[in-house]
């Protein structure tokens, strides 16, 4: 499972990373960005949900609307950007209508809030539009022959529950707004999102709900014709029990007395070695049940028939990751 074709494929320019909340998609997106930057590439890491998860991960000030360098590695560089729908709309107004001051007036009377939070899907149209811009921006001001500004864009995308709507918003939006610049742009964005230079990666844990959501998202994304990439199994724990012990544990055929004796001779029997042995074996039984369930869930994920990579659970545990953890995961991906 070491080779990860589409994750590091130089031709894939846009990596969309999604997963159920809590599966670590932000961390995985960051690790992927870092792994690409280590290959000497210039990579833009984008977040769109206003969570500032990337800033927390890399321990920098909240990211803004302009790309901020996060890590520089020889030729490679990783930059971060937090896209805000409101700023994106004001930018569009300015670019398309030169509405610098008038745009701010619209903002004051609530038109910008209206447009970004209410108008059906416009928010997602603007966010995906910014992603699209980042993918196709070229160095220098002139379009055409200069190389792309970023070799890769890695998007910390909305969670699996929203990913279909989010990525497909331009298909819907193009239908809803039948004319106008938004319509024109929506058509171009969809073309990029459906192209072979885009991959949507799914992050899952070996737990019931994330696996269910991953399965649902795969069906949805396939139906929408969006290009699926890899399945990233996150926080995978190495096995602790060998096959014999697993069987013993499932069938609960223990020799409690022998374990109690071992504990005593190791000096950790405590005051009641037998009850301690029973307590520990109870934990082994829980563990075996969990391992068995994880096996079933892994089977279900493998049946999705996607390239799969497993990332180990890091000692820091959930929510406590910092960028050293991201570096470790990038090692795993590389």
């Amino acid at each position: 499972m070491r080779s990860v074709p589409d994750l590091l494929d130089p031709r894939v320019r846009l990596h969309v990373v999604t997963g159920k909340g809590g599966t670590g998609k932000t961390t995985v997106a960051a690790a992927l960005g870092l792994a690409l930057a280590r290959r000497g590439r210039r990579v833009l890491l984008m977040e769109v949900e206003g969570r500032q998860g990337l800033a927390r991960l890399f321990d920098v000030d909240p990211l803004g609307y302009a790309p901020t360098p996060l890590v520089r590695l020889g030729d490679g560089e990783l930059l971060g950007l937090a896209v805000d729908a409101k700023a994106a709309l004001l930018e569009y107004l300015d670019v398309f209508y030169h509405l610098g001051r008038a745009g701010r007036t619209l903002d004051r009377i609530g038109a910008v809030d209206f447009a970004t939070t209410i108008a059906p899907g416009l928010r997602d149209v603007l966010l995906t539009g910014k992603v699209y811009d980042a993918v196709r921006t070229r160095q220098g001001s002139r379009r055409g022959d200069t190389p792309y500004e970023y070799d890769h864009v890695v998007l910390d995308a909305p969670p699996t529950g929203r990913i279909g709507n989010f990525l497909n918003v331009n298909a819907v939006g193009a239908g809803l707004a039948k004319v106008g610049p938004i319509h024109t742009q929506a058509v171009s964005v969809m073309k990029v999102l459906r192209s072979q230079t885009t991959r949507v990666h799914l992050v899952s844990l070996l737990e019931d709900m994330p696996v269910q959501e991953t399965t649902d998202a795969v069906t949805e994304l396939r139906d929408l014709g969006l290009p699926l990439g890899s399945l990233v199994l996150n926080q995978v724990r190495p096995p602790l029990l060998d096959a014999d012990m697993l069987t013993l544990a499932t069938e609960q055929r223990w020799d409690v007395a022998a374990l109690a004796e071992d504990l005593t001779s190791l000096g950790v029997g405590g005051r009641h070695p037998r009850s301690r042995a029973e307590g520990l074996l109870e934990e082994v039984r829980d563990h075996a049940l969990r391992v068995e369930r994880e096996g079933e869930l892994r089977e279900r994920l493998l049946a999705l028939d996607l390239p799969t990579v497993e990332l180990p659970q890091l000692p820091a545990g959930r929510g406590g990751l910092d960028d050293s953890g991201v570096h470790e995961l990038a090692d795993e991906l590389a």
Partner: protein
Amino acid sequence: MSPRSRAKAAGPGPRLDVDALLDDPSVRVVVCCGSGGVGKTTVAAALALRAAERGRRAVVLTIDPARRLAQSLGLSELDNTPRPVDGVRTTGEGSLDAMMLDMKRTFDEVVEAHATPEKAEQMLANPFYQALSSSFAGTQEYMAMEKLGQLRAVTDPDGRERWDLIVVDTPPSRSALDFLDAPERLGSFLDGRLIRLLLAPAKAGGRAYVRVLSSIAGGVTGVMNRILGAQVLTDVQTFVAAFDTMFGGFRERAQHTYALLAGEGTAFVVVAAPEGDAVREAGFFVDRLQAEGMPLAGVVVNRMTTSTEAALDSDRTLEVADQAPPGTRQVLWVHARRVRRLEAEREVAARLTRLHPPVPTVVAPARPLDVTDLESLRGVGDDLSTGPAVSPRTTTP
């Protein structure tokens, strides 16, 4: 005394007494909130089941239950109607119904209840309405509140309220605060200044200020047309015009429900998992509820790793594992991993004991397998009623 030293000196905080909460007849609504993925729905269902089995006439309103949890409650379809749950061991008058929220259907029902049949039909067919009712971030929260209001109004033939306890699960969201903010956001949009401006050309009367307003609105409308395309705005205007009869009603309704939630019969239960993000969110939510004088019952720390042999710590366990025979070594590895996790989770959860003023807490242990049937749901209820409060950090920094 500085907050820091006070925190150090504090013993275990107050314990959330779940049974006292569920047995209190003045508590009519329990709202379970918290960030996504912490097991909110499971806690809501477990509380409702326990209440029913302790004699309450309970209904649980779930938003987006895991498929197998839904099945355990007998909810095979998302049909927006409370249905009796089979297999409940009720005592006295106790009963349990469960339902899954269908946000679009609830919205449709609101429209149908407030408009003439022709107007309702017009509105339900409006593309803007369809987008708003099925995809606007905030509609789900608003409709959960709307449904809560409806459930409270249901009566038996003899005029008695059908349910004396409604347990509400809140929509999955990034932030627990969304639940409090979304209805106001939707309400203020629907009643907002901009919508009125957009509407103004259609109802421009003779008064001068109206003419001024409508000329501004004309400008705004022009720009919006160019951005969105004319059709979108026409749909919005048609929608708003059709909504005229209910207009102003939405914000009012949202405020009314908000007031209801702030009232005496409601108790908020904040659910958190022993993970950094979830605990941080729970802290924000607790602060917010307290700042707004909302009735907070306490915090459930869900799925906490436990061990009866925690006295044997992870370092010592790994140390002796090296000298142990293979089978025993594996047993010790399993224990070491579990205790290490437990130690990390305790550190994270202990942050909840440093909130001011102190908040009642209760810890529910993790189960080896997900909750997928009534029996394990009952087990969660037992755990919630007997669990300890979160203990403050024992090691000094």
